[in-house]
């Protein structure tokens, strides 16, 4: 913080605290009044009894403010610490500031302040580890660490297309519960592998380290930044998930036929090279396309193929709206991440485009998703009850409004990012319900 900037803010404080070293080596801090005179601060003389405050170049002038909030605690936290020289001339005590630091939570949110402080936290743990002769780590139960590291709640992005593929197969009178369970397990393993691999490569490339505004929808799991899980453990975790996915995929190929193989291979490769070098697809602005393909046609068609042994137009058409909506989860989540992404060379679509264009792109994509459902019904590819998926249009509208209003406020945007996740989930599940209702209507 610049001194001139700090001085300009002092009118927001009711009093100052003068801090000086005393003759016994203790700091001595005393409240006082103040007024700004040119580039100095004139302060009210203070009395500390026998302890005489003398001129010093090592003084501090501290300004602190909170607003009590009964039943909650307080808010509006802010403070400024000026470093400088104190003159105790009897005519007027003056403080000449030479440096300033401070924080105002209305300008830098507390969560962001905490994220910026992570290196200090890691340094403290390292110092404690050295002091004690063994590694001191932040503590968290294994279950919670796994929950965080895998970003488990995002599995809805997998469950929706798998269910959609199953519903489409059911519509064509083919359904095996065992194969359905195996498909779901394999798809979830790929997704969890992707989440973990994504964190690994985003940490190695520095993207997550410079992201100070992560939300629960963006910025990765941060288990590596927090030191909750080691890089080695994350690599092992990703390898285990991919191994499970590949084994299940091969079993399904053996059962359903070789036609599934290319789709499975594409899914695993897209998932891995999403952030992994040398392709790093997300760094090239291809992340949205990869996510759309992986969590749309690949999963829906793959699931359908496992059940039926062939591909068809209906599951392909069904997969497009969920592909678009899952792509929009990533797309909107990139909004709060855009500065960190740009800094680390991750040239996502949101980084490449102006905010107005990003928002227009969101609206156009949502519109296309709904139009495809309508067109599918009009042309007789989709059963008419799938139109109930249009019930989520208000959710899309709310997300659009939120994006427009809070584009530059990561934490205010968070609830709208949540609505956007729900838009995909509810639209996808309503499509599933629509297809299942279509079976009943047809009979």
């Amino acid at each position, binding site marked *: 913080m610049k001194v001139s900037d700090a001085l300009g803010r002092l009118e927001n404080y*009711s*009093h100052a*605290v003068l*801090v*000086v*070293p*005393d003759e016994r*080596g*203790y*700091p*001595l*801090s*005393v*409240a*006082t009044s103040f007024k700004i005179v040119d580039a100095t601060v004139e302060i009210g*003389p*203070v*009395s*500390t*009894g*026998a302890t005489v405050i003398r001129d010093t170049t*090592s*003084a*501090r002038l*501290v300004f*602190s*403010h*909170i*607003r*009590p909030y009964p*039943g*909650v*605690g*307080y808010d509006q*936290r802010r*403070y400024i*610490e000026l*470093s400088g020289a104190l003159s105790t001339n009897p005519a007027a005590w003056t403080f000449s500031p030479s440096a300033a630091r401070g924080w105002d939570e209305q300008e830098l949110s507390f*969560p962001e302040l*905490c994220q910026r*402080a*992570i290196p*200090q*936290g890691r*340094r*403290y*743990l390292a*110092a*404690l580890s050295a002091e004690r002769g063994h590694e*001191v780590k*932040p*503590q*968290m139960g294994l279950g*919670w660490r796994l*929950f*965080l590291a895998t970003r488990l709640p995002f599995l809805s992005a997998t469950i929706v297309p798998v269910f959609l593929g199953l519903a489409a197969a059911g519509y064509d009178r083919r359904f095996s519960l065992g194969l359905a369970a195996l498909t779901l397990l394999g798809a979830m393993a790929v997704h969890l592998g992707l989440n973990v691999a994504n964190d690994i490569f985003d940490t190695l490339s520095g993207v997550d380290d410079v992201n100070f505004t992560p939300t*629960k929808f963006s910025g990765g799991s941060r288990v590596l930044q*927090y*030191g*909750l899980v080691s890089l080695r453990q994350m690599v092992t975790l990703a390898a285990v998930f991919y191994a499970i996915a590949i084994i299940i995929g091969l079993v399904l190929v053996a059962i359903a036929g070789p036609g599934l193989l290319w789709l499975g291979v594409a899914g695993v490769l897209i998932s891995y090279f999403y952030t992994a070098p040398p392709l790093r697809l997300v760094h090239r602005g291809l992340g949205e396309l990869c996510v759309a393909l992986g969590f749309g046609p690949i999963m829906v068609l793959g699931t359908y193929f496992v059940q039926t042994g062939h591909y068809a137009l209906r599951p392909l058409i069904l997969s497009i709206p969920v592909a678009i909506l899952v792509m929009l989860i990533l797309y909107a989540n990139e909004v709060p991440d855009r500065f960190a992404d740009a800094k680390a060379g991750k040239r996502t679509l949101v980084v490449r485009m102006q905010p107005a264009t990003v928002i227009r792109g969101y609206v156009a994509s949502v519109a296309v998703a709904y139009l495809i459902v309508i067109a599918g019904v009009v042309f007789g590819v989709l059963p008419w009850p799938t139109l109930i998926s249009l019930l989520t249009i208000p959710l899309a509208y709310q997300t659009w409004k939120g994006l427009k209003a809070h584009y530059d406020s990561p934490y205010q945007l968070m609830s709208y990012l949540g609505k956007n996740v729900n838009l995909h989930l509810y639209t996808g599940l309503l499509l599933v319900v629509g297809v299942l209702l279509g079976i009943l209507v047809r009979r």
Partner: protein
Amino acid sequence: MPVVELLNKALVAELTVVDVNGQLRTDPLIPFWDGRSILMTSSMLFSRKLQDIKRNPRVSVSLSDPVGVPAQPFSRATIQGDARVIDDDLHQGWYRLLPLWEAKEPIIKTFLKPMQKLGLPLFWERAIIEITPRRVFWWSDGDTSRDPQITELQEPEA
């Protein structure tokens, strides 16, 4: 005792420590009083003060803000003392301060729910700062231009 009343009411105090370069550094923190010592808690995220205290335990705490220290009648105090960092159990050790903390900031309990803690796990790895008062300055009407009442407490052991 008026200063104890201030400590019990204060939502904020200014803690000044001496840094590695011998320079003073002040941060606002919530003070607590357990009958013997002033207690504060600091996340390891903001642990620079903890490292400073470990090097030089001499600190000063000021209770200065008429709004942040809602005691009636209002007065002001400064307490110089020797601080000790208790960080042997960063995860659970500070929980003994929770009843005192919750009394001043009731919302804190909400943030301690498991799903909430996941958002900022390192913030909840915390140390306790225990300050033994050595000298207390008290300005009975809050006017620090007047002479304070000074109470000398036991000197640090050699």
